[in-house]
């Protein structure tokens, strides 16, 4: 018997008590259908004063309703020696001898089952799949054994706002700052962190070379409370083994590393998606795909018949051109002079991330040298192409194309691009496309639609030249608390530092998550 139970239930647990209890729950506590709700409303009133609120309780041993506030149920208990009553609002069991609500394991089990049945009748939604059926979400409760262990070990590592746990430096293994900065960004991706800290990866790889396992280990290292920087040599070895094109002691591109790492993680994640073997890349439900994969819609419109051919491609990141590269940035729309867009002048002020996104999703005239075969006209015609977001990933990564590798020159484009802390992607969605057909870029925001709102949580910066440079990362640990990760050294950073930085890779996280 648990400490929360009481010995007085034994008197009740005789004969057909389970069935009786179920009936009480079904009729008087959890009302599944409209009729039961009505019946409850009409019949459940205090037998002494007629109140139907006042914390009405039902006696467990006989048919009696009494209110708690006026102690009518207490009187009944004393008179009839019926020690137990049930609260009709939340189903808690009260013991008059103990004078407190008690929690008996068997009775709680029955309560839980009856509640689930009622909810199902009500058509309620169960988000959690556990032990073979769909359940409502419930917080973790320790078992008796766990409670014992926890009581014997009172020192805790509690993560509060002013806590270093979750932050850790990474030793540079020799030009590996490109790897370190991506690792910092990934370990501070909230959903990924939750996935690994709740131990959700079930490894199915035979050898010891699963990158997802190593990632899991990495999270353990980050949350271990150790202050000395971690040495990610195993990670480097595994990445080089699985992504040959990255191997080699030389400076690499962080963006390339991100894509390669996500790819290897995705490949190694096979066994995690509820048992569905995801060999089909379009059907994969691994954590990497759930978090990072978005859908990019490409519409090619024939200029003659205006027929649209649409394809949707998956993406993990969006690569944005910058002003200052050899391909012209302005004007944004073909034929438009681009000087004022909806009242905003682009010539003054710095380029913003939104500008880059607008350019990315602009309709692009493909020109007479690139005619597309139109299925409507059955001939080659000129067309315009436009990219929009069909499905937004939970974590959106923007890659500012600062490294130019054209035929003539290879250089770094240092143009400052200002990026916001909060970003609304609604204007760039496929669904918003119609309103932009004329080149009008509306920024009207529907305040009730939270689907497309993102907030910044990591910024990767590059200092130096194309040939040689150094990567650092700003990450957000708690709301509005930012840190600069420079290999082994982690320091506190201000929001201004973050927003003033050049920006190379920008990581945004969806603000509101909804279950499907």
């Amino acid at each position, binding site marked *: 018997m648990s*400490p929360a139970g009481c010995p007085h239930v034994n008197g009740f647990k005789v004969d057909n008590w389970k069935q009786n209890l179920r009936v009480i729950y079904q009729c008087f506590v959890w009302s599944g259908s409209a009729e039961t709700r009505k019946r409850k409303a009409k019949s459940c009133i205090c037998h002494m004063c007629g109140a139907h609120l006042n914390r009405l309780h039902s006696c467990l041993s006989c048919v009696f309703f009494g209110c708690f506030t006026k102690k009518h149920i207490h009187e009944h208990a004393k008179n009839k020696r019926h020690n137990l009553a049930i609260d009709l609002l939340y189903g808690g069991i009260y013991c008059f001898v103990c004078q407190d609500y008690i929690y008996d394991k068997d009775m709680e089990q029955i309560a839980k089952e009856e509640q689930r049945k009622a909810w199902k009748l009500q058509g309620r939604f169960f988000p959690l799949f556990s032990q073979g059926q769909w359940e409502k979400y419930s917080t973790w409760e320790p078992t008796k054994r766990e409670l014992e262990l926890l009581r014997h070990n009172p020192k*805790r590592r*509690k993560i509060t706002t002013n806590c270093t746990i979750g932050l850790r430096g990474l030793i540079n293994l020799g030009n590996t700052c490109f790897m370190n900065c991506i690792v910092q960004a990934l370990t501070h991706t909230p959903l990924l962190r939750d996935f690994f800290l709740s131990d959700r990866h079930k490894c199915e790889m035979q050898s*010891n*070379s699963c990158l997802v396992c190593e990632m899991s280990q990495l999270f353990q290292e980050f949350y271990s409370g150790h202050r000395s920087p971690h040495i990610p040599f195993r990670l480097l070895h595994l990445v080089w083994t699985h992504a*040959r094109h990255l*191997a080699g002691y030389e400076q690499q591109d962080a963006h390339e590393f991100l894509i390669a790492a996500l790819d290897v993680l995705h490949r190694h994640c096979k066994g995690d998606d509820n048992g569905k073997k995801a060999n089909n890349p379009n059907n994969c439900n691994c954590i990497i795909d759930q978090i990072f994969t978005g859908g990019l819609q490409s519409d090619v419109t024939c200029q003659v018949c205006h027929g649209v051919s649409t394809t949707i491609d998956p993406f993990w990141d969006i690569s944005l051109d910058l002003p200052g590269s050899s391909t012209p940035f302005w004007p944004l729309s073909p034929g438009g002079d681009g000087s004022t867009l909806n009242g905003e002048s682009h010539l003054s002020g710095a380029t913003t991330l939104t500008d880059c996104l607008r350019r990315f999703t602009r309709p692009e005239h493909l020109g007479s040298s690139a005619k597309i075969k139109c299925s409507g006209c059955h001939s080659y015609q000129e067309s315009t192409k436009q990219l929009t977001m069909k499905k937004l990933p939970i974590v959106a990564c923007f890659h500012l194309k600062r490294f130019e590798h054209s035929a003539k020159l290879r250089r770094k484009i240092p143009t400052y691009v200002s990026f916001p802390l909060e970003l609304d992607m609604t204007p760039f969605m496929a669904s918003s496309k119609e309103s932009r057909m004329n080149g009008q870029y509306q920024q009207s925001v529907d305040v009730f639609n939270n689907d497309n709102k993102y907030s910044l949580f990591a910024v990767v910066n590059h200092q130096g030249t194309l040939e040689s440079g150094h990567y650092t990362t700003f990450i957000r640990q708690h709301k509005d608390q930012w840190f600069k990760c420079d290999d082994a050294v982690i320091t506190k950073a201000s929001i201004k530092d973050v927003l003033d930085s050049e920006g190379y890779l920008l990581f945004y996280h969806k603000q509101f998550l909804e279950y499907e």
Partner: protein
Amino acid sequence: MKMEDMSLSGLDNTKLEALAQDIYSDLVEDACLGLCFEVHRAVKQGYFFLDDTDQESMKDFEIVDQPGVDIFGQVYNQWKNKECVCPNCNRSIAASRFAPHLEKCLGMGRNSSRIANRRIASSNNMNNKSESDQEDNDDVNDNDWSYGSEKKAKKRKSDKVFLHSLKQHIPLNPNSPRRSKSVKHKNGELSNSVNADPYKYNYNTGINYETLGPDELRSLLTTQCGVISEHTKKMCTRSQRCPQHTDEQRRAVRVFLLGPSASSLPDADTMVESDCYDASDGQVLMSRLQWDGSSDISPSDSASSKASTNNSDSKKPKKKKKMSLGLNSTGGGGGSGSGGGSSSQTSLVGLSNRKKKPKLPVPPAPSIYDNLN
């Protein structure tokens, strides 16, 4: 108050307001009651206070925001001596040099052969006690391994495959028997070449004993074969178990160079003869190695990329000394080795089509790491 059907149409606004207010306050009260039950249950079941922690622990993990220190309150740049164990060759490498080491170790660098060539051309000085130079000379004079450049690539591949099948030998011993084994048991190519054509080898480097003082000679002779070649009048720079010379020759050299009282080769039983080590051997090794100058833990990895010699093998003999000094590899040095190794093994097999199995069985050698871990 009995529940009865009420019609709302006859009521005026104030009554309706009052009703709405009643309903609202009932709802709020019910919600509060729900919260009370939650807390009550948590306290009674014992998990309400679970996440409370003591002040001391909280203080421990507070973020520090001072100039010159990181968030843990640590000064920058104190991490120069961090080490790790290479999953491929199981050697302890300085963390900041791990990437270049791994590149050579896995044989995937484009720099490997270029640097190795440079090394062979430039290494000439045996007086310098730095690791890399000793390494170089050792390898170059190593008749087993020093080929002309045209043989480099082919040789390296085959050696690599061979090596990985031998990787269970944790080569802490500078006089690793591996070398002799490989000469004896490797099929065809290598063993033949040892005796086939001595004039192919590079005689430009070597130790001229006449230029060394007695102290230097003494220290040199504790780690090297030292037998003076009749052709070149130079000392053999291979290990003390080099198969080309006998112990008798070595003893003779020592007597010749250091005088009859010079202690000859160390006793056989303090040397590790087999692949099995235990802690006492380690202790002996460590005490002997204390002498060995440089405090630089890792093999400077550029040194490891000898052209003809395969990377891992050439490094091992000398470098192992350094490793045993600093066996504080983070997490599972011994254990993780096999994992990393197996993966690299499969990838290297892909590289080379010939897989040479050593004739000797390969016992999993308990290493010094196991004991210390």
